């Protein structure tokens, strides 16, 4: 791959990046709006002599990934919302077994079957887990097709580096859109997996990768260890971007492809003389709590913009710790909030702050209380 830019769909970008990252096996089952990932890889993986299985279900697919990564190779599956729900049991196992599973969720609308429109309703499931027990995934949220490439590379690296299941949380908009992107080379070093990978018990004691500890003390220690590991991940890997936050009085906060709209809204508002900045977590898990808290401590108000009923909103509120005001602008799914709508909402929030419209009136229009 050269540095030359190509116009490519987000789904294809993820698929090609997986190939470049050295993904040896893909297992998947079709679901709109991510089917192109499997379609693209079906041909390419066969050309490259790598593994590709049309799994019988998402249950099959994610468990095939678990089997494959247990042998030390890079492997992944991709799916969307309601079908990612089917994979939650396996993700809980993978976290406990410390298996470097890579999973792509190109979000559509929920709950239930929902519809194929893009949405951001799976934040809670991705960040807080739909599986049982105390575990955490690493969750990366791209906002451009270029980031579909970059964060796919990073997902494969982080998954193996920390032996932790890692999710790329995209949405139907990103999956379906085309945008110029360059691939470059896979930028991360290869992780040494020889200390744990299953390769047959040749010249070493047999290894078992399992989550059952029949002794209580061992189970307790195991959970502590998993969480200590995640503290290290949070320390080393938390990432975000911010724009114009220094002099900002109001900070728009969004993740994924909504980032594009808050940046544009910020530019419009700045042109109107409003001191507005942007903050956007790239890692949703680990979440940049400290960085948001630091901004809140300087008295900057947060305006969270999401295509759901207030999921990341809770994390922002948790980070802010009541030190500044947090407002919410949202739509549950479908037509992405437009730049104009966001600008209008922010102007009302600013007006309410300045006392020209009542807080209650504003609240009833834009904020969802939770």
């Amino acid at each position, binding site marked *: 791959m050269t540095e030359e830019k190509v116009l490519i769909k987000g789904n294809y970008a993820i698929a090609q990046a997986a190939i470049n990252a050295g993904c040896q096996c893909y297992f998947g089952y079709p679901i709109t709006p991510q089917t192109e990932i499997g379609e693209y890889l079906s041909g390419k993986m066969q050309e490259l002599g790598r593994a590709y299985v049309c799994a019988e279900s998402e249950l099959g697919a994610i468990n095939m990934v678990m089997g494959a990564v247990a042998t030390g190779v890079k492997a992944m599956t991709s799916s969307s919302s309601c079908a990612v729900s089917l994979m939650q049991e396996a993700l809980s196992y993978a976290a406990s077994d410390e298996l470097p599973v890579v999973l792509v969720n190109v979000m559509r609308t929920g709950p239930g079957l929902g519809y194929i429109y893009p949405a951001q309703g799976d934040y809670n499931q991705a960040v807080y887990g739909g599986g049982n027990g105390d575990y955490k995934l690493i969750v990366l949220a791209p906002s451009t097709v270029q980031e579909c490439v970059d964060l796919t590379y990073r997902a494969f690296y982080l998954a193996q580096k920390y032996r932790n299941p890692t999710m790329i949380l995209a949405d139907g908009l990103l999956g379906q*859109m*085309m*945008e110029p992107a360059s691939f470059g080379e896979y930028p991360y070093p290869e992780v040494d997996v020889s200390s744990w990978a299953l390769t047959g018990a040749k010249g070493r004691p047999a290894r078992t990768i399992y989550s059952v500890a029949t002794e209580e003390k061992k189970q307790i220690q195991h959970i502590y260890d998993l969480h200590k590991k995640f503290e290290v991940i949070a320390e080393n890997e938390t990432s975000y971007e911010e724009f114009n936050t220094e002099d900002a009085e109001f900070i728009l906060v969004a993740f994924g492809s909504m980032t594009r709209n808050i940046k544009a809204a910020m530019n419009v508002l700045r042109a109107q003389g409003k001191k507005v900045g942007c903050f956007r977590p790239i890692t949703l898990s680990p979440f940049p709590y400290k960085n948001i808290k630091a901004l809140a401590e300087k008295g900057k108000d947060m305006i969270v913009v999401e295509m759901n009923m207030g999921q990341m909103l809770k994390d922002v509120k948790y980070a802010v710790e009541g030190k500044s005001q947090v407002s919410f602008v949202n739509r549950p799914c479908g*037509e992405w909030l437009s730049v104009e709508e966001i600008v209008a909402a922010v102007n009302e929030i600013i007006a309410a702050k300045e006392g020209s419209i009542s807080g209650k009136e504003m609240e009833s229009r834009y904020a969802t209380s939770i």
Partner: protein
Amino acid sequence: METNFIIAGFGGQGVLLAGTVLANAFMLQGKNVTWYPCYGAEMRGGTVNCEIVVSDTEVSSVHKQDTDYALVLNQQSFDRFVQRVKKGGTIIANSTLVEKTKPRYDIHYVFAPMGEIANSLGTSKVTNVVSLGVLSSACEIVSKEFLAKGVEKVLGEKKRDLLPLNNKALALGAEALLQKA
């Protein structure tokens, strides 16, 4: 400054491909660009459309409620998207399949017999490329030169033999308005 386009027609008219050519042209021109299709069930019947947003700075939302330009290849698409053109915007229609009506007075209309022009080249399959030619003379930010490069890129090595036909389609499309004027 962002400009956006909707290209629409019925399935098989190659509107997604036309959009891909246009987006490639903008990319090759060094601009920021996005292409976003209607997708899923909508695609399996009725009209197909895609949106292209081009910008000198980063592209904001890729899916917008209204559009600066609508390039429509059939009547259904005309009826639907004439309502989504911004005040002062332009709708460019394939008069081979679209009646020359003007339901609004606050937008510009361009009609060209794209289907007939394509047929004159021996195949209606290039209607989409003809339409891009028409667009290039109706919209100054669309460059004929880069559209040709976009066609070349999209056809790739495998379909290189189709390049002369497509270039001809682009050129005839671009001339269509000049002849009328």
